[in-house]
């Protein structure tokens, strides 16, 4: 392991981090939409949302990524590698985040929702001002876990042409014939990023107001 190799890994790790962060954020927005659909009580919203969650939880990310990369052009949407990677990760994490949020929404005290209704909140206000913040607070640890999962899953996006940390490690391993130090270093980088996420998340969580279901 030379400094040069390690620098290359660190540069690739920036890709990993960037793609993961963007995907988590987009995935969260989609997850909120999915939750809204699930809570709407209307079949025409619930059915597609349920199908979405079932599909993206049920198919390996590797397969999803290939589908997005090579199937979308067939229906006229040709996206470059980076977009395909972000779409794949976002949709996948959206399904998982929606599942997590569902638990949170279920735990939002009924009384609070009723109180909001009585006070004259319209359903959208109740959803965004009461249900979402409380559900998010309740499921925050699960969200952090999911962020870590996505960071790790981003190791698969090289199948659509992105050179991120794992792919870089693979390339370096085959040109230097040093699999152990290189893969171990790559693993260590993932670990450090994940620990950092957990540390920051812990701080954030402590600063959030306490909610008991």
């Amino acid at each position: 392991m030379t400094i040069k190799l390690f620098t290359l890994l660190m540069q690739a790790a920036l890709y990993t981090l960037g793609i993961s962060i963007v995907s988590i954020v987009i995935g969260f927005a989609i997850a909120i939409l999915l939750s809204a659909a699930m809570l709407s009580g209307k079949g025409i919203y619930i059915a597609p949302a349920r199908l979405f969650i079932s599909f993206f939880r049920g198919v390996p990310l590797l397969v999803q990524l290939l589908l997005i990369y090579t199937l979308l052009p067939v229906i006229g949407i040709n996206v470059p590698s980076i977009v395909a990677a972000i779409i794949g990760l976002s949709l996948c994490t959206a399904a998982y985040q929606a599942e997590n949020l569902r638990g949170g929404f279920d735990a939002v005290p009924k009384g609070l929702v009723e109180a909001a209704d009585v006070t004259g909140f319209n359903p959208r206000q109740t959803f965004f001002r009461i249900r979402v913040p409380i559900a998010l607070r309740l499921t925050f640890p699960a969200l952090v876990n999911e962020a870590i999962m996505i960071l790790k899953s981003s190791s698969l996006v090289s199948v659509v042409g992105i050179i991120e940390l794992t792919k870089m490690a693979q390339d370096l391993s085959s040109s230097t014939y040093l699999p152990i130090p290189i893969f171990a270093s790559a693993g260590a980088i993932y670990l450090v990023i994940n620990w950092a996420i957990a540390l920051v998340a812990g701080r954030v969580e402590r600063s959030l107001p306490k909610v008991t279901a």
Partner: protein
Amino acid sequence: MLKRHFLKTVVGTALLLGTALSAHAADDALARIKAAGVLKVGTETAFAPFDFIDAGEHVGLNVDFFAELGKDLGVKIEWVALPWDSVLPSLEAGKYDIVAGPATITKARLERFKMTSPIAEATVAIMKKAGDTSITKPEDIAGKAVGVGKATAQLEQLKEYSATLPKKVDIHEYVSFNDSYADLAAGRVVAVANSLPNIAFVAKQRNGAFEVVTPGFGKKTYFGFIGKKDDDSKTLVDYVNEETIKMKKDGRLGKLQEKWFGTKFDTPDAITDPAF
């Protein structure tokens, strides 16, 4: 309401613009590439010495070749690197204009794709661990574990060859040839079957660890780049053909071959009836 109306206008304008643009755009691949100033090339970066990653950098004969081609055409080259088994499907899906690879020019591929003028020989041979005396000629791989790349013509040739041997070869298919070299070093396979220019390069690079077993076992074949077969791509494939022949005549291709293979190949201008 206002918002919705605004959205409609934007979408409508965009659609109109899109139609107008595509109507005015040049109507074949080469003209579009020239207009865009970018040629998108798909490849796999685990196929030394054509495309590989050396200390984090994408290098190889393909990179040099397309740099020359880009200079002549006046466009930038944009590389898209995928695992080999999705390189050709992604060409068909329109992810890029042409595939570097290169790929062995075979009968099966000519049915599906247009292959450009050969840039090197592709005849398949065996590479073994240096000093392995149990393999001295190709037929010695009968009944033994041999590595090869997934979705490659080398795999098809190895299968065909295996069927002629008294004992079938235990074929291990790898995502990339790089992985098969790693397993040859580890000892999970006793040989790797790949084209001569590739294994000659790898054997030299890994000074002393690997050895090429000559002669090759496969039929004499050649490497070319791969384009789509439709009319739209014809101008592009023709252009790459002309460029290859031009570079061959003015000595640039020979220099590249010297640089990357350490030897020059005599390649025909076109392959219409491949041996395999």
